[in-house]
């Protein structure tokens, strides 16, 4: 039986493996993708100081450090069941089964689909799929594309696709009646985009980031949108239907009002050979559910979250979580959380010491600091939502003790 099994070789899983192995634990990581790195692999963005951050190099650094420490990484292996044992966990995988004293789920997030008519045609894919195709496999998803769904992720990936030599004809909203929530509301979308203000070449948006409130921004907003890196971002147009017989050949779009209603008589067809759907991210938590973990629904964190505390422990003995399974945030936050998880698992397995407790406290502070500095915050109110969740966890544990 090994000390720690980790599901997911992304930023959270690799960072956790590193800090656990640094403290003497025997660690195995399992990931179903062909190489380690998780969603770090596709990422490529420019920091405010103009430096490029390449997720592939970041992933390599983590991978090399983990290997150096004797961590075993198994790629191309899927986990399909988890069973709690007296002394730990058993993982049933498409390879051999693995028994471990502690188990960390660092499975990340998955993308939410938006079922626009025509969305199952070949050539329609999630925006993350296009990112992986272009940046990881180095194959263009198509020559001319349109992205449906305006959010920080879709804008960032549009830029990445452009660097791959792909022409993005526009980023537009989905048809309002198709989805719940705010994804079709120009005002709400403006709010989230303002966080990328430092990258925006448009003065409206740049000033918007500091001065203009989102409501006003969405109204002032030119009907034909604005451009970032030459890519039209159109908060006043919506995709009605994706067209094509055997594969995508166009998108039918229409104008929408500032509050998201379709303007009759404004429909037109834009010819494209691929379409990306950007419906946002939601924590990928099936394995926590299979394990029998308790959940809370927390919209600020992107969906159903396994109940856990600040030390990344769930309500099940020996089961931990880190990264986007605990809420959708940036890769840097995921790495910081991974470190917390690795350390608290090590503290649990070895004799806990004051030194170790201090390290854990420091790592917890670092998560908060990283979150505060994050360029991309997917949802407002993350910190408060997390405090609330930790509070719930403590109440839950106390309630259990008193029974």
């Amino acid at each position: 039986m090994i000390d720690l099994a980790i599901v997911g070789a992304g930023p959270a899983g690799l960072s956790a493996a590193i800090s656990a192995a640094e403290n003497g634990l025997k660690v195995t990581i399992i990931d179903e993708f062909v190489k380690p790195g998780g969603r770090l692999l596709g990422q490529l963005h420019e920091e405010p100081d103009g430096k490029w951050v390449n997720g592939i190099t970041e992933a390599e650094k983590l991978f090399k450090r983990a290997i150096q420490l004797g961590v075993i990484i198994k790629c191309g292996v899927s986990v399909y069941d988890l069973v709690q044992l007296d002394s730990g966990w058993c993982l049933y995988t498409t390879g051999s089964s693995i028994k471990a004293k502690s188990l960390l789920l660092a499975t990340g997030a998955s993308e939410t689909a938006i079922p626009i008519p025509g969305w199952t045609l070949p050539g329609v894919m999630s925006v993350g799929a296009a990112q992986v195709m272009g940046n990881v496999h180095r194959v263009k998803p198509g020559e001319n594309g349109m992205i449906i769904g305006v959010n920080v992720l879709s804008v960032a990936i549009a830029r990445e696709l452009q660097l791959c030599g792909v022409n993005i004809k526009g980023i537009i909203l989905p048809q309002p009646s198709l989805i719940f929530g705010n994804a079709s509301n120009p005002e709400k979308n403006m709010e989230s985009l303002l966080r990328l203000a430092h990258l925006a070449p448009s003065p409206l948006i740049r000033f918007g980031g500091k001065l203009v409130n989102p409501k006003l921004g969405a109204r002032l907003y030119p009907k034909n949108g604005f451009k970032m890196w030459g890519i039209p971002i159109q908060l006043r147009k919506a995709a009605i239907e994706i067209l094509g017989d055997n594969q995508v050949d166009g998108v039918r779009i229409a104008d929408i009002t500032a509050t998201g209603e379709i303007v009759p008589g404004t429909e037109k067809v834009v010819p494209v050979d691929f379409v990306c759907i950007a419906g946002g991210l939601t924590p990928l938590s099936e394995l926590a559910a299979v394990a029998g973990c308790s959940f809370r629904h927390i919209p600020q964190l992107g969906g159903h979250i396994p109940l856990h505390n600040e030390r990344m422990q769930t309500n099940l003995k020996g089961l931990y979580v880190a990264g986007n399974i605990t809420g959708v945030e940036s890769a840097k936050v995921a790495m910081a959380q991974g470190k917390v998880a690795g350390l608290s698992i090590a503290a649990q397995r070895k004799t806990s010491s004051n030194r170790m407790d201090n390290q854990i406290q420091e790592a917890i502070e670092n998560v908060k600091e990283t979150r505060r500095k994050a360029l991309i915050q997917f949802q407002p109110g993350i910190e408060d939502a997390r405090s609330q969740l930790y509070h719930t966890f403590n109440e839950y544990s106390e309630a259990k003790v008193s029974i």
Partner: protein
Amino acid sequence: MNSMRVDQHPVLGNMGQRQKLKFVFEGKQFTAYKGDTIASALLASGVRTLRRHEDKGTPKGIYCNIGHCFECRVRVNGQNSVRACLTPVENNMIIESNVSRTMTSRGGKV
């Protein structure tokens, strides 16, 4: 269709020389590079339809590209329901669309 490959990239750099692999999809011969998944190799060759919907016959391709959605399932060397997006191409692989030739998904004979 080499034009679908991103061999040069302003930030990520150039791909350089890669080993070529041969594989068969639906009876036709294709070329892949080492490191390709079935999905990336076929997309680079201009193939977007990986299978047909079992009942409706509508064309299906990749959707999530990271193993979650199972839209890209194909038959590889006789094994059904293999995810094209997670499976590296190997030399002389035989890949077919994942449609049973004798049964529909509801179990009836075609």
